[in-house]
């Protein structure tokens, strides 16, 4: 369908053009939302078309097919589709290319990005404070995240990685809550330090590989021969820290609750739905395949951190009074499953990890949107001040219930499939140690149901004025409705996504089995 068309670049350029148009609107600020919706909508449409024309088991007939480098022993590196490769900087000592492409790991996240960006823009339809900047920044954020998921050159990857920071900093800092200054700068500095660990690692990889190119594949292939175990351990540790802060993993998670509590709703949706995925994606796209020995040496560190994140995040949720803060902490817990899945180094576990990222993106977006609705309508998100809202806003209560149930892993909804597979893969590898992370299932059910009971059901609260309480507006209900439909769809038919992820991960798992 897209033969000969640089479709990935076009999809990345669309929001960028939209952002420029939006920022240049001048006095016609009220059209900014239309600009944003149109540009991100077209990007969404195109990305869905890309997904449909993506070949599950690609051969040379696939659009823009790039066959992975041969590693011997019937191993090879990832195959890519929609591959584009242009020289960007070529000097004696530096070789930087603009290389982008999609494989089964990046495709679900790529589509998730265009989807959530579009829905977040629709959800912000009534933004009246500086709309042209607001929507412009949202679009720039979309550009950055999309770029991270498709970049196949380290330099390009890092550029996109950092581009994400600035719009998020402004979104928290300008449109945020009461402590926005503190939260914005904490977010910025914290994640920037993590980025710098990645930067140093990239430099080390580049020079150690001696390939004179920042191409991820070539560096990884050269590294199979060149990288010593010590080097791999050191660099993997640095990269894991850099990506892990973004995930976020305990103990580097403290920026997340602050950022979420203060960020505007759409900002939280993108932050939890997309930015956290960048961390997980970085680990599985860059750190593990390039430094397999380092990953093997440090596997127990990953497992311990993953389980700590799962349990500690869940326990923190129990203690929260703020609905949004609770949801924020639940992200830490759920992203821990991603790490745990990756740490098994098996096809099943890695597929589960990637699928959990996708699932969490959908579910957490619903949760944050519903927190936004409550905040918007009731004026507070504090659980003790709420109660019985279901009487006044039945649709919102229904949506929230579905969101919470999806997040706690109700079978038939998307998270169940992901978490179940993570547990299965862990059982496969470490048998009964599974009992430790599985405790979180009970805790998760507890905090969600308890919060739901106290905020939505029971007698109507007297602590806030409920006389003017309205149900969801269309621009809030529609995005949540779409997400819920997808949560149910992929919950019942997870193989719709698995079929993309599995073939790519199989190569990786084989590589890990060989390289270990």
């Amino acid at each position, binding site marked *: 369908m897209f033969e000969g068309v640089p479709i990935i670049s076009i999809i990345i350029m669309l929001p960028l053009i939209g952002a420029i148009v939006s920022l240049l609107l001048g006095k016609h600020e009220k059209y900014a939302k239309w600009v944003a919706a149109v540009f991100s909508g077209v990007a969404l449409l195109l990305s869905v078309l890309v997904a449909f024309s993506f070949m599950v088991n690609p051969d040379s007939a696939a659009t823009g097919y790039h066959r992975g480098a041969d590693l011997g022993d019937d191993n090879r590196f990832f195959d890519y589709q929609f591959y584009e490769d242009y020289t*960007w*900087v070529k000097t*004696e000592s530096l070789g930087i290319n603009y290389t982008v492409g999609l494989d089964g790991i990046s495709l679900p996240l790529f589509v998730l990005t265009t989807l959530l960006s579009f829905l977040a823009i629709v959800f912000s339809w009534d933004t009246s404070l500086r709309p042209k900047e607001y929507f412009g920044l949202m679009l720039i954020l979309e550009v950055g995240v999309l770029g991270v998921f498709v970049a196949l050159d380290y330099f390009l990857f890092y550029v996109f990685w*950092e581009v994400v920071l600035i719009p998020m900093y402004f979104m928290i800092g300008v449109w945020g809550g009461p402590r926005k200054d503190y939260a914005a700068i904490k977010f910025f500095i914290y994640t920037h330090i993590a980025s*710098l660990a990645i930067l*140093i690692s990239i430099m080390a990889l580049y020079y150690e590989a001696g390939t004179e190119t920042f191409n991820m594949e070539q560096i990884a292939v050269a590294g199979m021969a060149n990288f010593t175990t010590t080097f791999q351990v050191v660099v993997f540790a640095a990269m894991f820290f850099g990506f892990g802060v973004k995930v976020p993993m305990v103990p580097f998670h403290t920026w997340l609750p602050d950022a979420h509590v203060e960020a505007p709703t759409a900002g939280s949706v993108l932050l939890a739905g997309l930015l956290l995925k960048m961390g997980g994606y970085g680990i599985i796209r860059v750190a593990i395949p390039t430094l397999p020995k380092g990953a093997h040496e440090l596997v127990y560190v990953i497992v311990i951190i993953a389980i700590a994140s799962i349990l500690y995040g869940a326990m923190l949720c129990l203690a929260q009074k703020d609905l949004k803060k609770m949801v924020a902490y639940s992200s830490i817990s759920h992203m821990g499953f991603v790490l745990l899945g990756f740490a098994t180094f098996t096809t099943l576990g890695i597929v589960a990890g990637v699928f959990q990222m996708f699932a969490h993106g959908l579910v957490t977006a619903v949760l944050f949107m519903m927190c936004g609705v409550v905040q918007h309508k009731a004026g507070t998100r504090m659980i003790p001040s709420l109660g019985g809202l279901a009487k006044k806003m039945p649709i919102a209560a229904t949506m929230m219930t579905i969101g919470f149930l999806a997040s706690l892993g109700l079978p038939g909804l998307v998270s169940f499939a992901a978490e179940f597979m993570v547990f299965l893969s862990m059982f496969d590898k470490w048998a009964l140690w599974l009992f430790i992370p599985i405790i979180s299932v009970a805790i998760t059910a507890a905090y969600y149901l308890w919060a739901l009971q106290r905020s939505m059901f029971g007698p109507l609260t007297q602590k806030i004025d409920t006389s003017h309480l309205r149900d969801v507006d269309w621009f809030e209900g529609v995005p949540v409705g779409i997400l819920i439909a997808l949560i149910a769809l992929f919950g019942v038919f997870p193989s719709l996504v698995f079929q993309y992820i599995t073939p790519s991960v199989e190569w990786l798992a084989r590589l890990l089995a060989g390289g270990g």
Partner: protein
Amino acid sequence: MEIWNYLESLLPQLILLLFALLMPAFDYLFKDKRLLSLLALAPLVALVAAMVSWLFLGWWVPPESNIDLIAIDNEFSGLFLLVFLSVGIVVVLGSPEFIRKDKNQGEYYSLILLAIIGMTVVAESTDLIALFVGLEISGISSFALSGFRKSEKRSAEAATKYFIIGGFSSALTLFAISLLYGVAGTTNIEGLRTAMTTPSGWLSDGNADPMLLLATVLLMAGFGFKVAAVPFHMWAPDVYEGAPTPISGFLAAASKKMGFAAFFKVFLVGLILSITQWQEAAAALAIVTMTVGNIIAVSQTSIKRMLAYSSIAQAGYLLIVLPVGTPDAVTGGLFHILTHAFMKSGAFMVVAAMGAVAIGERLDDFKGLGRRAPWLALAMTLFLLSLAGIPPLAGFASKFVLFSSAVYASSPGPDWLVWLAIAGVLNSALSLYYYARVIKFMYMEKGPKDIIRLTPMLKLAVAVAAIMVVVIGVYPGPVIDVCERAAGFIFS
């Protein structure tokens, strides 16, 4: 005929000199207040003409026409020339509005041109004597420039301080040169290296003559003053704060770079063979400079002082080049010098623009700038993010090349070189705090609502710098190429 060769090869300098001498006369001609703002056109013409003449110089000047003391036809000096002239253009564009009520405007431009001549001589020098003369020409002009508003106490204090410390550093440099002449018997920079290769006892078996060590230390201090390396930095914040703002930008973006030209020439050409003697000292100087600069910058409430300390920190990054001492490092250093010239002069021009409309230069004065002057605030944001090293801006690309050279060199060279890169990266993270704070004040704090109007010249000055920061950031290839070739001359 030889005299013609001399003149031809010095054409850029001669053009600048001609205009420098004519400027006071132009001042007299443009006595009419309305015409006064046109005065700035003359130095602009001079700078552009000098740039053009240099670009074509390579075509008609045969290499053998090089004078003994300076070499014109190489890309190393050419790159610096380009930096100095570009900064000159940005500064001159930003000046008329800022000094419109001052007297002696002709002299002001004249001094800028003279200072640039001195800087280019430093960059082109092949001999310590020429280098010293260049340092002095630019130094003396800079002292006078920073005291341009002589009735203003701050300005006069800045000039005095700058003069005393500058004089002191010149004395150190000259003393070091005389010592080197004593041991090596030559003041030629290449000659120093040649002298070291012959077994003469003053550098044998890794043991250096105490004279050589003393000269190295003195040179490090002398040039250290010029680039404001810690602990020789005390003058910089006061001078940058007291001097007229465009001149602060000029000092930070151009004058400081002259110091690096001298550093690179003398240490990486003349003293490269004794690198093990001074490598660790230079590394310590780099790390201390960047760390102290950044830490003190965090607590500043005056933007000019903050930029001054940030400039010290940037000097620390550039000093990484010396201990690493590879062609890659010099490439990165030159590249960072180039990008820093644009981002720092741009940032100072924004501050100058604020000063020109009498708003002030404290952090508080930047409140709400995002609404009052959206384009100015956007440009400032770009400069600050670029200084912090956020992609895809120029500062990121140049820091990337610079720091990665240290990572690369640590594999064949000493392992500890990698710590230079790590220190640089950590410092970049620290610096983000105070840069982001300015951005926060511009966009997230409520300030006065009135719109700020700027003159076209100032807008152009800021726009030129901002466009360069973005363009070099997005497409750094050709610039890195040029820097690589320039670095090649150091090691040829």
